[in-house]
């Protein structure tokens, strides 16, 4: 038994806070490694001890194993919890922790190494009788073509050392295989330090279902039921739930048995997740074992009542799994959504900025990396928080979660909140028809529109409040109605920022009433305008909206069902140096990782010009039209900020 009294947390953000919450409850002292970016963030304020990691890149900080081990030793830690991501599945790091005489909160370095190779893992699982997909490791395009010819298209190209979908690409046929392979290898090499990739059969419209397993040093391996994580964007999970709404009990039994078999074959100690895909016909296939705590562990906690971090500490200290875990039975339904700082309607482009507000109703569990005032930077994953609801039924859990999201105050940084609400209120979702193709099939635009159209009265009321506030501070007597016109010619317009969207609101005042059009939406009438109370008539519904002033040009509109924070956008953009026509600007802050063209090159429309890495995703900048490259003001490795010119293309004149 190696009792854990002080744990060093080799992570940041919400998972660091999550681990610290349990540690505090168990009386374990926490040592948190922290970088300049994270100083002052909520996690750094909750740790007992901070261990400073100097450096500006994650290679120097959160991926710097030796520095972290040294920090753990220096601060008297007897264990290291890696969280998820970063070094959590790095066998060398686990080994270094063990070698330093510390307890690694996770499975043995050997198991991590074994499961770290997806190719090796598959072979091992196949040998243990777990169903797997056909596939092969590949290093040339011709190898891929061979697999395609043998087992058919489409194929999925993945990084052997990967996780989280990074570097994954669907190959629908032989076209473009070479380019995709290059990109996948480059991304895998950059992200995981291992360029090995493999292909396997690609199952269309599968469900992604995983089983939580736990093993102790006494040979016990249990499963804590399944989680379904089908709803994904760019291979990253957006919504997770337990139990899976769309599998039969028979499939559920198969999955759990296969997961236990996998754990047993590995003599697994600690928390792990065995991921499967479930084909539309119900057949299952092993994907990978994640040898760490999963992001989505709270849904398992919600249905079992267990604290998985506590279980990790127990088994890491060498104690057996407690009876409560062994006898656990799931109850009710839990759903987790991941709140990302990203714009779902522009290809999930990551968003940065200062979070002006962050407050979520208490009806749900919130595991967040941030608080009001936190600065969201481009260096890390854009996940701001996980929000988890539990209820006796799935319908009730979805409703609770959607309601909480609708009434959350989240401002200053655009998020995927509207998409999450749209999913939770979507008919197909509520019917349990969830596959990994869900977002594509239902349409991100249609899903976000579910909330966006319903908050139009709130945005309209906020706009009226803007006019009223200006009116009240103007020199004009209050007997003059706001926006009075003796000759009515056109609506009065204000542009508001709502979750990163610039929305034009057009208002026609008529005494205590107003006709309002929000964005492209249909106009509706406010039947009563008071100082801070507004009543809109939308179709046949009366919607009462209260508006409060949050600060200079910032307002909060609240209805019975929703809360919206808006910021008035300046009517005029300050004049700026005109960009050369044809300049392609950086869509977000990032690093130039590849330049495909040189000055003088003739390019066709959609030709790749260069690639930018931001928030761990590679974004290719393509030619918007055919023309000639006249300038490339950046070099590889160049750090750019949003709006910086990257390439100038002069259009062909026909």
């Amino acid at each position: 038994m190696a009792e854990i009294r002080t744990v060093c947390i080799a992570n940041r953000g919400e998972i660091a806070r999550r681990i610290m919450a349990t540690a505090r409850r168990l009386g374990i002292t926490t040592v948190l490694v922290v970088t300049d970016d994270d100083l002052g963030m909520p996690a750094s304020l909750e740790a007992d001890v901070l261990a400073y990691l100097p450096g500006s890149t994650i290679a120097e900080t959160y991926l710097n194993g030796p520095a972290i081990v040294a920090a753990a030793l220096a601060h008297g830690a007897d264990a290291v919890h890696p969280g998820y991501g970063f070094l959590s599945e790095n066998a060398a790091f686990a080994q270094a922790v063990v070698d330093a005489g510390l307890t690694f909160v996770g499975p043995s370095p050997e198991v991590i190494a074994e499961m770290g190779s997806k190719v090796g893992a598959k072979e091992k699982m196949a040998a243990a009788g777990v169903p797997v997909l056909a596939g092969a490791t590949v290093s040339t395009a011709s190898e891929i073509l061979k697999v395609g010819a043998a087992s058919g298209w489409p194929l999925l190209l993945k990084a052997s050392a990967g996780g989280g979908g990074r570097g994954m690409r669907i190959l629908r046929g032989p076209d473009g295989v070479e380019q995709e392979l290059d990109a996948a290898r480059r991304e895998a090499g950059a992200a995981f330090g291992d360029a090995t990739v493999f292909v396997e059969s690609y199952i269309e419209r599968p469900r992604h279902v995983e089983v939580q397993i736990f093993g102790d040093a006494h040979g016990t391996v249990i499963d804590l039921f399944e989680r379904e994580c089908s709803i994904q964007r760019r291979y990253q999970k957006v919504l997770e739930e337990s139990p899976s709404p769309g599998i039969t009990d028979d499939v559920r039994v198969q999955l759990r048995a296969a997961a236990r078999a996998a754990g047993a074959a590995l003599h697994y100690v600690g928390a792990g997740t065995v991921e499967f895909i479930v084909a539309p016909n119900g057949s299952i296939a092993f994907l990978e074992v994640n040898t760490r705590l999963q992001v989505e562990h709270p849904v398992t906690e919600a249905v079992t009542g267990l604290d998985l971090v506590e279980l990790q500490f127990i088994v890491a200290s060498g104690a057996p799994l407690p009876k409560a875990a062994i006898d656990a039975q799931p109850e009710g339904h839990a759903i987790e959504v991941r709140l990302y700082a990203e714009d779902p309607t522009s290809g999930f482009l990551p968003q940065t900025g200062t979070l002006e507000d962050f407050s979520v109703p208490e009806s749900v569990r919130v595991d967040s990396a941030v608080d009001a005032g936190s600065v969201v930077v481009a260096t890390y994953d854009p996940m701001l928080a996980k929000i988890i609801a539990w209820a006796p039924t799935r319908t009730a859990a979805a409703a609770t979660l959607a309601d909480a999201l609708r009434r959350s105050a989240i401002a200053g940084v655009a998020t995927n909140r509207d998409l999450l609400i749209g999913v939770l209120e979507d008919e197909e979702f509520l019917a349990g028809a969830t596959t990994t193709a869900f977002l594509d099939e239902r349409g991100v635009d249609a899903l976000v529109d579910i909330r966006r159209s319903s908050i139009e009265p709130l945005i309209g009321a906020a706009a009226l409040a803007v006019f009223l506030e200006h009116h009240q501070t103007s020199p004009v007597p209050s007997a003059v109605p706001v926006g009075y016109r003796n000759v009515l010619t056109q609506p009065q317009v204000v542009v508001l920022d709502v979750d990163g969207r610039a929305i034009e609101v057009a208002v026609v005042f008529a005494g205590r009433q107003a006709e309002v059009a929000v964005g492209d939406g249909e106009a509706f009438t406010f039947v009563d305008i008071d100082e801070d109370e507004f009543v809109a008539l939308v179709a046949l519904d009366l919607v009462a909206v209260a508006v409060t002033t949050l600060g200079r040009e910032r307002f909060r509109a609240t209805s019975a069902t929703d809360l919206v924070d808006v910021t008035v956008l300046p009517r005029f953009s300050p004049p700026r140096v005109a960009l050369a026509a044809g300049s392609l600007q950086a869509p977000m802050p990032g690093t130039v990782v590849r330049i495909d063209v040189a000055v003088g090159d003739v390019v066709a429309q959609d030709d790749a010009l260069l690639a930018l890495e931001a928030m761990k995703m590679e974004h290719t900048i393509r030619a918007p039209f055919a023309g000639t490259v006249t300038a490339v003001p950046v070099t590889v490795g160049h750090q750019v900020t949003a709006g910086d010119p990257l390439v100038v293309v002069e259009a062909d004149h026909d």
Partner: protein
Amino acid sequence: MGILTSNVDPSSPTFAANAAAQHAHLADLAHEVATAVAGGGEKYQARHAARGKLGARERIELLLDAGSPFLEFSTLAGYGSEFTVGGALVTGLGVVSGTECVIAANDPTVRGGSINPFGLRKHLRALEIARENRLPVINLVESGGADLPTQADLFIPAGQLFRDLTRLSALGIPTIALVFGNSTAGGAYVPGMCDYAVLVDRGAKVFLGGPPLVKMATGEESDDESLGGARMHATISGLGDYFAVDEPDAIRIGREIVAGLHWRKQGPGPVTEPLEPREDPSEMLGIVSADLKVPFDPREVIARLVDDSAFDEYKERYGTSLVCGWATLSGYKIGILANAHGVLFNEEARKGAAFISLANQRDTALLFLHNTTGYMVGKEYEQAGMVKDGAKMINAVANSTVPHLSVIMGSSYGAGNYGMCGRAFSPRFAFSWPGSKVAVMGPEQLAGVLSIVARQSAASTGAPFDEDADARQRAAIEAQIEREQHAFVMSGKLYDDGIIDPRDTRAVLSLCLSAIDGAPYEGRRGFGVFRF
């Protein structure tokens, strides 16, 4: 102070009939206003927009603060003339960067925004409002200069535009020109005479003569940009004080200039917190009689105009056809003179004269609510000194130095119009209700007078009198006067500052009083109040 109570019954047939008549007038007004707003019509508006340019009213909307009112003046300028209604110019009062300003915007969709005689008068009137009330002026310029075919009526008086702009500057009232397009010849002097000139790149063309005129005059080949482009004026001639990259940028700069003025109002300010009237202003439409021959009680109007419907009536039982008294409107103290039974008798004239001089002693602005057929005629009244008494009132109003506001509610005939501070007596602001009528006398009376004179003339020469011809002539003259006394025609001639919805009167007067508060004022002094 006494609180006025209403005797109007909104459910009565009279109220309904009155309101119906006013609604019909408002519908006619909306029709005419739409013509003015349409400017040069769909084709020219579309062409202007296709050039990426904003319309005159769009420029104004972009210039105004959020929630700011805009009180447009003289919308119907040119009504009844051969010119497009509106005079190719939009003028009005609104709030820019927290400052009440007078705005004048050329409408380039009407003959290129060129200045016609009505547009000129409208522009001059706007500058007069700016001068009297010390309001900064913002000109949104896009004008081809004088409307050349009308130069004979325009050239000499148009000099006043230059003169008034620079006199405003001399008075310390800021003048700003935002130049969006052509600003040619006469137009070139608008930025030339203003304190601040903002020129839009690739839009503004500020020159005395364009390339064709230069070619005719000197034979020199030239182009717009080198003669008068924003870049040239910003870098070479120095006429442009600010270089705007586009139209919105010019408006942004204009707003910043106003913000930087830190302009302060110099008037006495409101004296109380305004309370809303106790009677409903929206009932105003049912008060004015559908037939203007039927008098109505102006206290019903006052109860719907003034703060808390509170009115301190002066000489309530004397000269009862002219209601006088004190009130506050949006917190500003005012004295009100309102016609009650149409005719002004000797007592009313003397009461009015005394009240006006009292208001001067009290430094209190005056509001005239017109519904008068004029001063009384007849032996009894003439012998009692009607001319002398009328003269007292006209003398008082003409020499009063407190600000005056006039609202023509119903009729305003004869010297009654003068005594009640008609346009010739320079009220700071004058507005009309849409059914009102202004003339030297009513059409029947005027036609009748002419008929009697003709009959007397025939009798004196012994010539036969043609009764049929007289009847036809009377009808023709009645019809002519009926047309000419119409509110739209009067407004078209700039004899008021515009026609307003009666329900908006409190809002409009509040805006006017706030504007008036821009300048200091003091009543005429030197004598005690004469008890005429």
